[in-house]
């Protein structure tokens, strides 16, 4: 809070700045949805890690329930929506994103973040299997088609050729189904173009996030949580590629000038594991900042960096997203990030919503701690249900982590 007050007197945000551009992309994204809906176009609801190349190539209009749920939760309406879902018979045990989204099909107007109701569902379970149930239920309730690309959790380190051909079969089927539903036509030419742009965006995103490695980091790692929405919904657009390139340029500048969006002295560099606690974003960020702890490492950098050369590579990339890979590979990716970015502590969000992410997190974080020789602390929270979080516990755990990190500094 205080930081933003300090930033006053408010300067007009430079419309050319990355922040303004990224903000504009999201704003346009939601505006375009309504325009399309009004024109009678069919609107899809899409899972965050559904191969966006498909709808982008077909020129469809889709939106992202996970982004919407995060926005609703961050703006304070998470509890209201969760309670609506619970009143309709949903257990408070299921993912809060799902509860918010299921509630939205009922409420239809949640000013914290509205978007049009869906005409079809695009599901991909490479982040979790709850996704399937959530989308099934909406499709059933609204009696709309659902396209399901099943990307099974991979128990092995490498993606098997069997898995690639299974997913490929579904990919091609999904195109056919969507052509039928929307009347749009697939073009291989356009597909190539979309793949190129998507790679460009991903490279720019990875580049921008890589600036966290500088000491001090030119950014408050929490910034990435906001920018991520663009990586999700606009990866196949030139605007997104340019905005992330601009972001990287700005970070480059900041490094040179010794500036940072982390507006405190960076005393401790940590990795933050898990989704943000959107309803308590400010609190969770402030507790860190006030102690000089900056998040310089997150798996989210990787999560939306889809780099590939061809169709098979594309499929493989979607089979390798963070929640679909085994413990060893998940661990190694994080160890790499910790090492590259010089994180000296690990703060783990045990997310009540997310059984997949939290199901083997204890063991994985223990291993990361051991391999990297850094302290690990976890706290209980939820990415969207504000009721599953305790400020006191969070503050105590963060303080504890800081103290161990401080003691270790002294020892070295």
């Amino acid at each position, binding site marked *: 809070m205080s930081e933003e007050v300090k930033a006053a007197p408010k300067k007009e945000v430079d419309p050319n700045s990355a922040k303004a551009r990224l903000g504009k992309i999201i704003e346009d994204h939601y505006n375009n949805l309504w325009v399309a809906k009004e024109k009678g176009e069919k609107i899809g609801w899409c899972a965050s890690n559904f191969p966006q190349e498909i709808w982008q190539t077909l020129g469809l209009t889709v939106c992202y329930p996970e982004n919407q749920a995060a926005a609703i939760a961050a703006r304070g309406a998470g509890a209201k929506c969760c309670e609506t879902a619970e009143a*309709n*018979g*949903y*257990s408070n*045990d*299921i*993912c809060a994103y*799902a509860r918010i989204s299921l509630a939205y099909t009922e409420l239809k107007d949640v000013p914290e973040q509205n978007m049009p109701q869906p005409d079809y569902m695009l599901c991909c*379970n490479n982040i*979790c*299997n*709850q996704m*399937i*149930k*959530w989308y*099934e*239920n909406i*499709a*059933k309730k609204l009696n709309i*088609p*659902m396209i*399901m*690309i*099943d990307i*099974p*959790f*991979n*128990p*092995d380190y490498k993606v*098997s050729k*069997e*898995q690639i*051909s*299974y997913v*490929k*079969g*579904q990919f091609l*089927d999904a195109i056919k189904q969507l052509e039928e539903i929307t009347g749009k036509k697939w073009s291989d030419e356009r597909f190539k173009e979309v793949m190129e742009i998507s790679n460009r965006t991903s490279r720019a995103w990875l580049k921008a996030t890589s600036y966290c490695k500088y000491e001090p980091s030119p950014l408050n790692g929490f910034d990435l949580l906001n920018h991520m929405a663009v990586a999700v919904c606009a990866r196949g657009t030139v605007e997104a590629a340019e905005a992330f390139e601009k972001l990287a340029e700005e970070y480059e500048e900041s490094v040179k000038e010794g500036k940072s969006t982390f507006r405190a002295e960076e005393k401790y560099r940590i990795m933050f594991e898990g989704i943000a606690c959107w309803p308590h974003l400010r609190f969770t960020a402030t507790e860190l900042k006030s102690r000089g702890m900056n998040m310089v490492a997150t798996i989210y950098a990787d999560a939306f960096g889809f780099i590939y050369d061809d169709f098979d590579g594309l499929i493989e990339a979607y089979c390798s997203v963070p929640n679909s890979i*085994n*413990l060893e590979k998940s661990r190694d990716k994080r160890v790499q990030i910790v090492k590259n970015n010089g994180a000296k502590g690990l703060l783990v969000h*045990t997310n*009540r919503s997310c*059984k*997949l992410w*939290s*199901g*083997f*997190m*204890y*063991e*994985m974080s223990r291993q990361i701690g051991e391999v990297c020789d850094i302290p690990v602390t976890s706290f*209980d929270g939820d990415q969207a249900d504000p009721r599953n979080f305790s400020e006191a516990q969070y503050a105590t755990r963060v303080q504890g982590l800081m103290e161990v990190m401080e003691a270790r500094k002294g020892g070295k």
Partner: protein
Amino acid sequence: MATVQQLLEKFHEVASSPQKQKEYYLKEGKKVVACVPIYTPEEIIHSMGMIPMGTWGADVEVKEAKRYFPAFICSIMQSVLELGINGKYKGVSAIVIPYLCDSLMGLGENWKMAVPDIPFIPMQYPQNRKPEYGIEFTKQAYLRVIRDLENITGAKFSEDNLKKSCDIYNAHNKAMREISSILANHPEISAVNRKDIFKSAYFMEKEEHTRLVNELIALLKAQPKQDNNKIKIVTSGILADSENLLKIIDDNNMQIVADDVAHESRQYRVDVPVDGAPLDNLAKKFSAMDHCSVLYDVDKKRADYIVNLAKQYNAKGVIVILTKFCDPEEYDYPILKGAFDKANLPSTLIEVDRQMVNYEQAKTNIQTFREVLEY
């Protein structure tokens, strides 16, 4: 020939002593492979001369597993891991874990570190299991299980043996479907007895279990028709093996005439087709399976399936037995409830877990439900 009572006692004994069964088979020189819910290719394990044993956890306190699982993972997964860490599966050659829900994935990933002496074999089932590419993927996943089993145990796989095992499993399916349906006419067989018949299937060689079940079928068929003044109900859920809970159902003069329980009838609805190559057939069996919370179905046909089951067996109501923290079932519940209400089929929801000690709430719930049904 045994009497009905003797057979029921035998089922009870086996259902209550998986440890003893495991030791017995090990002593016989057989290899035992643990099979985690909800579906695993037991036929393959059987065909390789090993004993597949169902591993659905137990009603134990969770201590060690807490190092791996947060509290909000279902008690089946928690207790399987707990038993593994405590050495209760010692002697087992491998454990097959199907990746059918998020919590099962957690079990597999944790298992490798928590119970390193029992090799873990993942079974990656496809959700798009019906198209050709889905059937092919199932087959490839089976081949992987076969490879792992061969490497770990030295046993050899052959399609001929698989064919025989599929026949044995089909015969068992048939016996289980038949007994379930015959029991609807036998109110004297309690819910606890019924559970024993189903549960014992996981701890016995299938040939032997089929033989006993068929014996029971023959005996029951030979009996004169009984008056039935019990309240007929259908159960639905993942697991309903708690004797405390089943006794409450018995005490309230209720009779389970059919079930949609994963641990029970969901296992036996679909047979392996017989007219192709055995492994392809087995993959086709999975592709034909439906009406289950962990199998993708955008039409949610499970809801109507249960309604029809209730109609078919003249059940007056449905008891949904929900395993706490089981998200696949929790997502289905509002849809099921909607279908029950639409069909004017009374239902009630009871939450259970494997650490439950207090059944007072369940008791009150079932008593009230009885009143509704009797009204």
